[in-house]
């Protein structure tokens, strides 16, 4: 493991990687800064770029740059026009926009940047430390354990998805079912192809991801039309002083701890972390009455907590193949398109590349600071760009990216089809993440289970009870843990809903 870490360090020191990370950060900030354009949409539209460059040390860091930049970029419209660019910035509005109204938007944006970069750096470093022992444990896993872990991942993702567990399970089943379209992995017999050659290889991941994540947002934007925006606060006021940053360090570190812990648990995500960080800061403050009225610590707490989630979500993703949210589900797809399958075997087959990506993530924070610091005035103007200019560009990029994945016009039909499915699912309040997970891992699970059956020979039960106790323990424990986590998540959300009125 240590050798892989050192090799990863060497592999990470590439100029082109950092150029692409910078491009990703800029594009992410741009997407996040546009109200109504989310990080998920930005990542799904830009995913084909990562796929086309063909090098995991360029493509994945590029997308991670978009992810980091997008989460921070969301704070720009939240502070300037009280309209969060991403869901993660909802809490930033409370004090950020109040500071803008008091004539201190620059200070609020500076604090959002400083808190984001510091928490991102610390949580990325913790990720690098945490991932080594977890990866070392899962390294000894074979096909039976891999199949069991995939089963566990799918159950956890379904029960932690937004909404009732039954809906999560249904979405998982639907995604699973779609993954079977195409040739069977063992006998190559056709399944649900209706005799068409286009479906023989199944649905491609890129049109599915863009269709489910980006197209419904474009559809909604078209439906809403080009509405006039509220007044944009001009970028005036003092910059953040070193003294003010030092005074907020305790809050930033507390929120970083909260965000890191939240990131390790699949299904919670940035919004929950930002809320928890903000509440903790308010409770710990000597003057809680100032929160919600333009308290700079409120901006620091929310932004540090939501950005600290980014790194730790990579621990369950890379070691077990469990994505924590929609963005990490997209990253899972990006890894797979680069020929890297997150899960127990990843560190065995591509340990150096994975460590290189994590090290790039860590160093990217320095670039993040520079780009953010000097580009704040530019992104403050982005919030004024008309939607009627952005939507046509986004749909064009979605079409081009989909076509480029494998130069197959059928994928465009698939894209639109999944877009309509995504819209219908949103209308019916279904979370698409279990569906995406079912689609990505469905065939893999079938293949690993088939390998397990081959290994077991005549009696699978005897094999499970005598030779693969680890697999059996995971399979038996999964429904129990799944039920407990599901009940806990349901209670948590009910409490959140009651608190939110």
């Amino acid at each position, binding site marked *: 493991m240590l050798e892989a870490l050192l090799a990863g360090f060497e592999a990470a020191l590439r100029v082109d990687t950092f150029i692409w990370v910078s491009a990703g950060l800029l594009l992410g900030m741009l997407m996040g800064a546009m109200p109504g354009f989310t990080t998920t949409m930005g990542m799904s539209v830009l995913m084909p770029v990562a796929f086309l460059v063909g090098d995991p040390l360029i493509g994945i860091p590029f997308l991670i740059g978009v992810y980091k930049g997008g989460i921070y970029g969301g704070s720009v419209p939240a502070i300037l026009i009280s309209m969060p660019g991403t869901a993660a910035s909802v809490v930033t509005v409370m004090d950020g926009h109040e500071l803008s109204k008091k004539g201190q938007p620059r200070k609020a944006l500076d604090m959002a940047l400083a808190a984001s970069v510091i928490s991102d750096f610390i949580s990325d470093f913790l990720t690098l430390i945490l991932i080594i022992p977890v990866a070392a444990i899962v390294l000894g896993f074979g096909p039976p354990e891999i199949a069991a872990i995939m089963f566990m991942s799918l159950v956890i993702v379904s029960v932690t998805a937004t*909404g009732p567990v039954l809906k999560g399970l249904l979405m998982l089943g639907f995604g699973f*079912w779609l993954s079977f379209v195409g040739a069977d992995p063992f006998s190559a017999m056709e399944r649900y192809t209706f005799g068409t050659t286009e479906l023989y290889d199944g649905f491609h991941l890129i049109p599915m991801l863009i269709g489910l994540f980006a197209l419904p947002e474009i559809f909604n934007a078209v439906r809403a039309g080009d509405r006039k925006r509220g007044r944009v606060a001009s970028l005036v006021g003092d910059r953040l002083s070193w003294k003010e940053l030092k005074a907020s360090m305790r809050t930033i570190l507390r929120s970083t701890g909260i965000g890191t812990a939240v990131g390790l648990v699949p299904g919670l995500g940035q919004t929950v972390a930002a809320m928890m960080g903000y509440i903790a800061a308010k409770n710990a403050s000597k003057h809680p009455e100032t929160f919600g009225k333009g308290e700079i610590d409120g901006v620091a707490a929310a932004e540090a907590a939501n950005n600290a989630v980014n790194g730790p979500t990579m621990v369950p993703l890379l070691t077990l193949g469990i994505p924590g949210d929609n963005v990490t589900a997209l990253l899972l797809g990006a890894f797979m398109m680069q020929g890297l399958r997150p899960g127990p075997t990843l560190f065995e087959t591509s340990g150096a590349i994975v460590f290189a990506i994590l090290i790039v993530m860590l160093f990217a924070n320095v670039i993040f600071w520079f780009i953010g610091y000097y580009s704040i005035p530019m992104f403050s103007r982005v919030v004024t760009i008309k939607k009627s200019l952005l939507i046509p560009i986004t749909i064009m990029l979605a079409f081009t990216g989909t076509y480029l994945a494998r130069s197959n016009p059928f994928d*465009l039909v698939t894209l639109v089809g999944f877009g309509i499915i995504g819209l219908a699912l949103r209308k019916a309040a279904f*979370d698409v993440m279990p569906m995406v997970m079912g689609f990505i891992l469905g065939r893999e699970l079938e293949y690993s289970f088939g390998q397990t059956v081959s290994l077991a020979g005549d009696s699978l039960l005897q094999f499970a009870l005598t030779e693969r106790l680890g697999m059996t323990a995971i399979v038996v424990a999964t429904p129990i843990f799944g039920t407990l986590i599901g009940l806990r998540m349901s209670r948590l959300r009910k409490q*959140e809903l009651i608190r939110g009125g």
Partner: protein
Amino acid sequence: MFRKADFRLVAGLLLLAVVALALGQRLIAEPPINLSDDISPLNPRLFPSLVLVGIVVVAGFFIANRIRGVEDFEGELEPALAGDDSGGTKRLLGFLVLVVLCALVINMLGFLTTMFVLMLGTSLLVGNDSIAQIVAFSAGLPFVIYVLVTHVLRTSLPELDAIEAVLVPLLGMLPSF
């Protein structure tokens, strides 16, 4: 509003799953010869059938709960089409027709023409009233993307022979990467 929508969607999924289970023999081909367990340890119908049975059971529970009036916590997802905005719905339907058409004709009309139509139509639907801006964006951006993809990334995009004949000498004048 979305309580009805989710009920209809689950009912549709249940129906699809039942039909797929019933037609399983026709929709999934069986190997023409018996393959040994080493080559094909699983029947190609096993996993799909298990998943379909799972969908039927879960969808059945969901529908039964709704019929019995059991309250189910809805989560925080917002319905995409909330509200009664007929103008917005018309725009959305127009946009859906546009994207479906563009997806179908890209090979026939080529990348540049299709993207021009797609961007032009979308701009008009969304409410951009500056014709000069619309035309400049709809013609210029697809051209930039075309040059980037074909000349820099060296990947092909579908294009009409007549347009390609004009573009090739122009692209030849650009520095190679």
